């Protein structure tokens, strides 16, 4: 019984240790200010918005999903 209990406490202690070490690693991370990160997101967006076919629609002739019209020629 006592062994069972000590096993529980050892596993949860080792889990708690791992959690503490993980948190220490994360706390040491180099972080950037939100203003800087936001500016970078904006810059990426603006740089690529011209290539985005959903924002700047491509002409219908180039849209691969346009409705297909079949032209019949009279022979």
């Amino acid at each position: 019984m006592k062994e069972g209990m000590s096993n529980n406490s050892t596993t949860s202690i080792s889990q708690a240790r791992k959690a503490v070490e993980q948190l220490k690693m994360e706390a040491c991370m180099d972080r950037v200010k939100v203003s800087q990160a936001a500016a970078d997101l904006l810059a990426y967006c603006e740089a690529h918005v011209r290539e985005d076919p959903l924002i700047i629609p491509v002409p219908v002739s180039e849209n691969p999903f346009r409705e297909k019209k079949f032209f019949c020629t009279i022979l």
Partner: protein
Amino acid sequence: MCDQTFLVNVFGSCDKCLKQRALRPVFKKSQQLSYCSICAEIMATDGLHENETLAALKSEAESLKGKLEEERAKLHDVELHQVAERVEALGQFVMKTRRTLKGHGNKVLCMDWCKDKRRMVSSSQDGKVIVWDSFTTNKEHAVTMPCTWVMACAYAPSGCAIACGGLDNKCSVYPLTFDKNENMAAKKKSVAMHTNYLSACSFTNSDMQILTASGDGTCALWDVESGQLLQSFHGHTADVLCLDLAPSETGNTFVSGGCDKKAMVWDMRSGQRVQAFETHESDINSVRYYPSGDAFASGSDDATCRLYDLRADREVAIYSKESILFGASSVDFSLSGRLLFAGYNDYTINVWDVLKGSRVSILFGHENRVSTLRVSPDGTAFCSGSWDHTLRV
């Protein structure tokens, strides 16, 4: 009878505390000693300082979490939508359903595009996995899986294979062949083995490795050829529901989201968790990286989608409205990252302006929950799959 026969009932003086107790053999640096049960327990937690009990560790963990929050808050000098005020607003959006793909007999659960921007694979509750040509709406291949609820499917980067899995706890890879005489199911290769359902899978940059997420709370990286486990990722405390790989230029990380409301970023090579975010109020159903790789969005059952920036290490935007009550099941960015498409359980798709945080458009059309949503590789269209058995492009 008690079967703890390994307990040697020897009485004597403990090697450590020198008290007269029942002793147990204990190995310390390959030397056998005899400790009493108390000293044995202390030894099992060896390496700790004397006052490091479980309670002390827990309180240290709490204080570290608090410190992390403080660090993150210090950098919170401005909101994303404030920075985005100077950006032009987007015009009115008219998005129409161009193709409706019918053929599944039951709810569509997952889909993925092929890199050729035209083919897609979708999987459904009835166990069928179908490869479609989205331009012509033809079905190119169909496989019936031995299990129902195929919750995950992925297209290989080369376009030559698909991977899928679900309640069978495995991820199977099927090579695609155009030979009509070949039975696709015969060539199936079981790659991943989990102890619970497979919720998501994705090929890495090559056809040779697959990343999987499972209801057993872990993610794993497998080698397709040998079926070997290359790396496993432990850290979620509940089912992992989704994952997404970082866009190739930015390296070997991926993000996963789960029922424990946390989104975690992992290093694929070391198996270590790099960052964790816990601001959602309910299960995270879908995560997707921003095209630049510096941020990711998540959609959750709490009816919000949130944008997390990896370098600022915090949530930078929330996309929600009081009128939206149903959870978001699937999210994806447009090519430039300006638009976020999110499929909800109230049968609609909301299109959000990522930078300004406002909703740009709502798309109606599905007759049941939208379960999966992906933008095509060239950004010309996006496909949504729903519980109404159809996919719309």
